[in-house]
């Protein structure tokens, strides 16, 4: 190896190390942080039965939406609805336990960009409108979900 080649090799190694350290396997944040002060919002969602009913229409919207359809059409919809319902229930201070995966783990193999994330939020908003959930109550939930973009969006 001549000096130039050696320099290039060292540089390549340095860049590789940098790239590897730039994307460490980060630990999942809590996917369902419970906030007892959101209990009134839980009531506005109609409790757990209300959230379960919401999930049915949410999934319909996700399948209707060409931006999200391909992700959910062949997935285990029953399981996803159940996990989402548990997750929302816990977040809103309800008497549930979240038994699903962390958000990073659940979406790690999917290619999701910010447009896809916002599409899902819009579909959720439309479903919540259908269920007459007050706008301010909707936003209390969305405020907890929004930061999950860091784990759900997999395409930089």
């Amino acid at each position: 190896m001549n000096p130039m080649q050696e320099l290039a090799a060292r540089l390549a190694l340095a860049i590789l190390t940098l790239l590897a350290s730039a994307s460490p396997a980060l630990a999942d944040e809590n996917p369902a942080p419970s906030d007892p002060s959101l209990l009134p919002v839980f009531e506005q969602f109609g409790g757990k039965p209300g959230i379960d009913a919401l999930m049915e229409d949410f999934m319909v919207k996700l399948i209707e939406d060409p931006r999200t359809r391909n992700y959910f059409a062949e997935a285990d919809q029953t399981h996803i609805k159940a996990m989402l319902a548990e997750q929302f229930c816990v977040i809103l201070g309800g008497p549930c336990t979240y038994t699903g995966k962390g958000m990073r783990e659940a979406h790690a193999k999917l290619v999701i960009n910010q447009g896809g994330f916002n599409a899902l939020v819009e579909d959720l908003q439309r479903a919540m409108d259908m269920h007459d959930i007050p706008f301010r109550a909707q936003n209390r939930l969305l405020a907890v979900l929004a930061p999950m973009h860091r784990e759900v969006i997999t395409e930089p």
Partner: protein
Amino acid sequence: MNCSLRFCGSVTMALAMGAGVCAAAQAADPESGPASPAELARPDDTLAGSDKLLLTGGVSQLEGAAGGGLTPWAVIGGYGTRDQIGANAFLTRVGVQDYHLDGAGALIGFLDRIELSIARQRFDTEDVGAALGLGRGYSFTQTIIGLKVKLAGDAVLEQDRWLPQVSVGAQFKRNDRGDLLRAIGAKDDHGVDFYVSATKLYLSQSVLANLTLRFTRANQIGLLGFGGDRNDSYRPQLEGSVAWLLSRKLAIGAEYRMKPDNLGIAAEDDWFDAFIAWAPSKHVSLTLAYADLGNIVIKDRQRGLYASLQVGF
């Protein structure tokens, strides 16, 4: 328009070594069996897009930047996300007791990072023009080119962090009435405003707040030229907006814009407004406001209606 341009793809290609790392990591993953349909799903790569959430690109402020009515916000205009390009155009009319102002313009937002805008303004002096010997309906006109760059944060998504979205911007203004402007004491017919804006949506409260610090020499935003006999240097001016979100499509709010007072013969006041903005879809929004513009040239207590229509994709 489907450009099918894949940003990550191209970036990864540029860093050919990075691609090598990804491939190696995948091959080494013992759990990667056959991909499920969800794993094969891909986002739409169309560059011209509108996946930002409704109203989160703001409306068009007077000088053409995305913001409230009077003030630029840190948001990048249009509905493009960080993978998309968005654009819109606007028409604005402000009618107060003795004058009216017409504005029109357009902007493009690139990758939710850079905003380029252009606006044309026409300030009609109506009867005041005649009183000043300029002729009834004498108009001052100017063109404004705007540039805004997002530096940090995300006004909408970062709900668990205090950091607002922060952008810096510049507005390059050129007035067409140089000779008259110099006669009334203005030093220049062109000038550049610089600003830094911080914007944050407080979703839990359904409130959006913005603060802008502008450095400017403009007289009545440049319609009466730049610099004057009383002051000719850049002065920092504070601008602010608050908006209450009533629904996804509807927001009400108020704004304040501090202004310099450079011209001896034409005292200038700070501006206020109270507005309602309605976006029935991502393609159109309508903003109505009641504005108090204070003294303009020789007429005090200039108040009236501000109306702005924006169309985009």
